[in-house]
Every structure is written in C-alpha cells, then in structure tokens.
C-alpha cells in the first residue's frame, strides 16, 4: 500500500477521533499534551487502525501512539 495513502488515512482517522481538522494537526505534535488525546482515544485510534487495515496490533504498541507520525509508523510496520 502506498505510504502516502497510509499517512493520509491514519491522519484522517486520528483527526476524526480527536475532533480536529486534519489540516490543523501537526504530525509531530504530542497527541496528549498538545492535542488533548486521552487513553480511551488512544485505544480508539489503535482499534481504528486495526479495523481499517484488518490487522492486529499488540497491546504493547498502544503507548507508542504519541504523535500522528508515530501512529503512521506503527501502521506501516504492520500493514503488509
């Protein structure tokens, strides 16, 4: 799958969960400190990525979802 597609899709997915315009999200901004994400939203992002790409991410990966770019890296690591 094209890397830019994953980037756009994951960003859109996160934007939807944290209720922000995707264009206003700095991909390196801290999801918790800058964008107001809580632990439940992090789980929703994990589950959203799993559902979208039909993959299973280990629970240990959950704390790694700290920025949009980290979430994109995570998705790319598991999407074949």
């Amino acid at each position, binding site marked *: 799958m094209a890397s830019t597609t994953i980037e756009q899709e994951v960003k859109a997915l996160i934007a939807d969960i944290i209720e922000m315009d995707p264009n206003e999200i700095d991909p390196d901004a801290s999801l918790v400190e800058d964008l107001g994400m*809580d*632990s*439940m*939203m992090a*789980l*929703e992002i*994990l*589950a959203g990525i*799993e*559902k979208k790409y039909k993959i299973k991410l280990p*629970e240990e990966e*959950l704390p790694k979802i700290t920025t949009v770019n980290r979430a994109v890296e995570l998705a790319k690591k598991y999407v074949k």
Partner: protein
Amino acid sequence: MSSKDKKLAPLDFEQIKAIIPQRFPFLMLDRIVEIQPGVRIVGVKNLTGNEWFYQGHFPKKAITPGAMICEAIAQTGIVFFSASQPGTRDVTYLMGSLKIRFLEPVWPGDQMFIEVTPLRLTSSAGIFTAHVRVEDRTVAKGEFAMSAKPNNQL
C-alpha cells in the same frame, strides 16, 4: 476447547452486585444469562412501573430514559470486563465514549436483553458493541469505550 469457547455459569442479582459498584437507585441489571469471557455477554433488566425514574420520565406517560438504558449497557460491560480480565482489582470503571441509536421506546413491563461484545479489549480498557432487545425487537444499539482506572490513579 479453547478459552474462547469457555462459558461461565449465569449470574443472579446478588452475584452481579458482588461485581459492579452501583447500588440502588442505579442498579440496571437483574441477571446475566450468558457469559463467555472475551467473547460475549447477555444481561437482563426487567422494568416495572415502580422504577424510580418513571416518576419524572414522564409523569403522564412512563418511558424508560435512554440514559438508564445506557447505564444498563455500561453495567453489563463492567461484568463482561471483570470476567474477561479476572485479575482486575481496586479500579473504577469509566465510560470513555458512547455512540448509541435508540430505535424504539422501552416501556414499563418490558424485559431488556443487553448483549455486549468486544471490538477491542486490552488489560485496562475496551471498545464494545452493544445490542439491546425487547422480545425480538432491537430497541437500541451502538458502541462504547470503557476503561478500568486504578483507584490510586484517579
């Protein structure tokens, strides 16, 4: 038989109270009729015209508040989580999000069957689907997220 196939015995009202922290007037679960840890649970709430909330909702026509149906879903979710993650101790359960559609009114005399299945379960939280039936009719359905927060972190 894998652990996924394991069904636990149904739970009665007293057994439910030993699991969930809610008490009168917030007990919205009478019985668990089916429980398969990690897979699915079905709870039952019998509604009588004597429920406290019908006094005000509404004085001239008793209809079960959607908020109380959500509470029944949440309590079923707590029993499910507790059975699926049996090591969980000294936590408070917090609803993170809830997206629900109410399809039909629920009246005094109705018996709600509340089915909860996990979309994603971790050791401290979960995202679930909920399906509430009265007889063979779906009265509410949706998704919710819930976490088990250790009391020393609240």
